[in-house]
């Protein structure tokens, strides 16, 4: 299967640089719906509405503001936003090697794979193998879609996996969550430990399925078979009083501008 890369560049550390492509490791299985107009099944479009003037706002009148207190905004232009955005990365430069066990899973954000690009296969295989043996993860900073991420690169099933990590300031403090320290009875602990041990299994993700998704796709399939889908009307783009004759249209336009 040819996977489409969402980024391509090189992964490097010290003297090694390997051309790679970044590909998604997951495709969230959400089924999405279009919103239609019940009268004629036209797909609906989003428009920006100004409640003050009770009117639709055209694109060129829309700007960005950051709300500091209710109803007070700091304006931000595209240029200003651009000025703080990082440059697109060409390389994933590994700066440290760490033990992945030290990373609390709460830091895991999004999983990807790195696949070798043309000419990089041999060096890629070498890196995969060495990282598997040392059992370490490479830490790197990397810009994707205008954001700089901290990423961990690991060796997994003969390939390089890349996981974006959350920054520590994104992690909510958990001190308040745990109840005050106190003693628990050893007997109670043992009883609970035993019942856990009875329930131990190997993790088999195939055993668990998104039941709602399954039911929903079945329902959609049945409905599509039972009854022909409704059809949106053919949209005539905005136009005035119907199609004009070419000569009339050109003359009308030329009247506005006379050649010098």
């Amino acid at each position: 299967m040819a996977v489409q890369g969402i980024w391509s560049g090189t992964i490097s550390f010290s003297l090694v640089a390997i051309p790679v492509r970044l590909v998604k490791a997951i495709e969230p299985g959400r089924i999405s719906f279009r919103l239609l107009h019940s009268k004629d099944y036209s797909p609906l479009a989003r428009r920006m509405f100004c409640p003050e003037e009770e009117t639709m706002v055209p694109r060129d009148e829309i700007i960005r503001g950051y709300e500091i207190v209710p109803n007070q905004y700091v304006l931000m232009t595209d240029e200003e936003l651009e000025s703080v955005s990082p440059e697109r990365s060409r390389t994933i430069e590994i700066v440290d090697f760490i033990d992945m066990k030290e990373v609390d899973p709460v830091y895991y954000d999004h999983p990807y794979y790195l696949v070798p690009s043309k000419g990089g296969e041999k060096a890629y295989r070498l890196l995969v193998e060495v990282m598997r043996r040392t059992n370490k993860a490479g830490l790197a900073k990397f810009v994707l879609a205008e954001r700089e991420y901290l990423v961990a690169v690991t060796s997994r099933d003969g390939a390089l996996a890349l996981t974006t990590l959350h920054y520590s300031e994104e992690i909510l403090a958990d001190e308040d969550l745990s109840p005050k320290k106190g003693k628990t009875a050893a007997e109670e602990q043992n009883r609970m430990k035993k019942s856990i041990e009875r329930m131990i299994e190997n993790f088999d993700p195939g055993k668990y399925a998104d039941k709602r998704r399954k039911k929903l796709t079945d329902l959609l399939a049945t409905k599509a078979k039972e009854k022909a889908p409704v059809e949106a009307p053919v949209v005539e783009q905005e136009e005035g009083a119907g199609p004009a004759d070419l000569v009339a249209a050109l003359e009308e336009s030329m009247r506005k501008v006379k050649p010098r």
Partner: protein
Amino acid sequence: MSRTFVEMAGRRLSLSNLEKDLYASYGFTKAHVLEYYRRIAPLILPHLKDRALTFKRYPEGVEKDFFFEKRCPSHRPAWVKTAEIPQDDGEQMTVCLVNDLETLIWAENLASVELHVPLARASSPETPDSMVFDLDPGDQAGIPECARVALILRDLLSRTGLASYVKTSGKKGLHVYVPLNRKETTFEDTKTFSKAVAGIMQKHYPDRVTARMAKKERDAKIFINWSQNDASKTMVCVYSLRAREKPIVSFPLEWRELENPAELGDPERLQVTHSEALNRAEEKGDLFREVLVKEQKLPHL
């Protein structure tokens, strides 16, 4: 973006930005370009027919960037006729055939100010139906020098029994066409023949003619470009507008217009503008008609 819908021969066309100034320093909008092509259509269409169109598009006007487009845009209306042309890499490429007014107007709506076509039809891409000499004056040469070389070329060709026809390039040069219209002729034939003719011209008129591409050899000379006789090359179509400050047309001339030095005295005379092109076309009809129909056999050299 402004849009105007028109209906032509039962086909709907959406014309965009008709007010766009395509010749900004001349005040000639997209509507004017479309109007020119609409009126010249009876004359230009036979010369575009069944040939792979190369669009030369000037979306921001002739003073700004342009791009060539050989592939027929995938967003074309369903009624645009196309052909499959084999490319050098063996792949097929879908090209547009401008066989009717609607397709011509659609192509012009894409700001394809200049229309370029090959010397062969799409159905027989290896068979040129004419041979061309592209006369390109060096920096110190002008239309009068170019006209003299064209006349010598015409005489040389007629001594081998070949009639030839001339059009302005719409820039500084002239294009001399020799109709062939025989399915036996190949580009190899026309290339060999035209190269030999250019060589003879250079040998006999070394101070007026060069058959070499190098710009520095041109100066006050006329470069006879024979290498246009190739399946992969295109020529600006007769009656096409050119992208210059003014809307100048690549327009056919009568040989006597080049013979008459009084007329040549005014080089502007040979710069046929859009309005003059329409007047002349009405008066004279298609002076390039013979290029499409006259059958001629290249003599052995």
